[in-house]
């Protein structure tokens, strides 16, 4: 049995307030628990990880030191900002393995994540933490995490290196695909364009098509897919191309084509209010009614799904 609980579902920046009460204002953090042993894996350390840390202090610490793996989709701030407030890092005996991709030429993961804990930003320095923390740079790969948990990762399309995660456990598949937008040809295809280059135009089309096909394969047959849907298709086309986020429409289409059973629309725009998300969900459910078996939900802070 795989249990998935959402502690942060918002994109970009935490946005608490009266308009985000229902779906939640914390940034990305997802808790996974596997089997009887209750092994804990966390995806992302957005502001939601603060509450998860407090919950683990109550639920897990009394049973023994906290051990967990933290997988970061990427190192943009909304996905790492909660780390200094994750209480288990201050507890002697805690063991936290952090994994994530690092864009070339930046410093290592230890600096990128850990330097948030330096006096200029925070009252405690990384070197003063009591927990044992390891940092592991992650690539596109397949990993055996032990206890029957298999992990596959895939590079997504975001302004910095970003990984999607596919966990397989006891025949069930849980997949994340954020932050990402569809791969597209970045090279001009209009021969009139001054930067037009025929080879680049053709190669660009092919490369984008192949990457999208690989992505489709990556999410295929997932029992649960958590997909970026920061924008509507209209917003995306109007002014958000190249920002590294998807539309609701693209997420739904991808999930449907990939035979996904349940789709969670994730990484809500900070400007999106609860009533707007309600309306959008209703609209998309209505539009897809009778055309797909796909179950569609808006990611909601605090909800739990069992696979």
């Amino acid at each position, binding site marked *: 049995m795989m249990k998935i609980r959402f502690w942060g579902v918002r994109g970009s920046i935490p946005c608490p307030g009266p308009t985000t009460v229902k779906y939640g204002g914390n940034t990305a953090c997802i808790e996974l628990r596997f089997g009887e042993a209750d092994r804990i894996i966390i995806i992302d350390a957005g502001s939601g990880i603060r509450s998860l840390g407090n919950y683990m202090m109550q639920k897990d610490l009394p049973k023994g030191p906290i051990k967990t793996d933290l997988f970061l989709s990427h190192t943009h701030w909304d996905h790492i900002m909660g780390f200094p407030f994750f209480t288990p890092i201050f507890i002697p005996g805690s063991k936290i393995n952090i994994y994530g991709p690092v864009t070339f030429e930046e410093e290592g993961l230890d600096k990128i994540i850990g330097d948030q804990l330096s006096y200029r930003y925070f009252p405690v320095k990384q070197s003063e933490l009591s927990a044992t923390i390891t940092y592991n740079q992650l690539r596109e790969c397949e990993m055996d995490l032990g206890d029957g948990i298999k992990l596959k990762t895939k590079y997504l399309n975001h302004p910095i290196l970003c990984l999607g995660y596919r966990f397989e456990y006891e025949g069930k598949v849980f997949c994340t695909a954020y932050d990402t937008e569809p791969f597209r040809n970045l*090279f001009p295809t209009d021969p009139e364009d001054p930067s037009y280059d025929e080879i680049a135009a053709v*190669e660009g089309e092919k490369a984008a098509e192949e990457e999208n096909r690989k992505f489709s394969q990556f999410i295929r047959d997932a029992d649960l897919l958590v997909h970026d849907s920061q924008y509507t298709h209209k917003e995306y086309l109007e002014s958000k191309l190249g920002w590294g986020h998807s539309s609701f429409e693209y997420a739904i289409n991808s999930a449907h084509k990939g035979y996904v059973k349940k789709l969670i629309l994730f990484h809500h725009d900070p400007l999106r209010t609860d009533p707007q998300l309600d309306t959008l969900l209703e609209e998309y459910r209505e539009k897809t009614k009778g055309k797909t078996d796909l179950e569609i939900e808006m990611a909601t802070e605090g909800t739990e799904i069992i696979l």
Partner: protein
Amino acid sequence: MESEQKIQKIKAYIDKMPSLPITVSKIMEICNDPRTSPADLNKVISVDPVLMGKVMKLINSAYYGISQEVTSLVRAIIMLGINTVKNLALSTAVLGTLGSSKEFQALNMEGFWRHSLCTGVTAKLIAKRRKADQKTLEEYFIAGLLHDLGKIPINNKLLDEYLLTMRLADRDHTPLYKMEKESLGFDHAEIGGMIVNTWKLSQDIYNSVVYHHNPLAYTGEDKDILYSVVMANYFANAFEMGFAGDRYPEKVDPEIGRYLGITLDHLEDLEDQVHQEIEKARIFLKLTTATGASK
């Protein structure tokens, strides 16, 4: 200095080989400009053999762990994003500031650059004429662009010896690679092979770098790219587009032309197109001298 010592000196240099000084300022400008388009980025990397080789190396390195070999820069930009590729290019360009045009004394830097670019462009146009798979055209270009890479470390680390080698080759009307072998104990094709191995570039690039003066010694199946580069190199020399030190190059074995189905007339037809492409690159890099023979 013994041949082995020279090789050691070159090996040490290859490990931190800088980009061509000629393109560095443009790379910095393009990569530091937030409005840079993928097309501009592609263009700036495509005109520098060292940068192109290094970026391809990094993309295919364990750093990214991509299981399928990425053989085109366009694909790399789409897969990894413009920012990642910008970072890769910048990191190489920063190394480039360690090199200076003073180092380019035996070889004329701009002449070398033109010769490399001309060979790349011509190899691509030959492939196009032969209706090679559109998807592979960039590989032809890269192989041509990089074919003389081995001359850079020799030029930069063994300057006096290389100047002498070039003078001897001129005096005796001997192809440069033969004189290199005679006076240095190795030639630029061998050194190029070392670079390609260090950077772990593709087999086709390796073949073009190592066998471009001795293509019939290559016994493998993938002759198309190698032979096209050989022909393109001959064209660049014969039509005096740029100059990479080889004043008396060998004639191409007729077998190469037969295999490719390409004659000298065909190559002549390409001249204008090649000039245009080099001219575009020259304007892009804001070089001052006009395209043409710089012999």
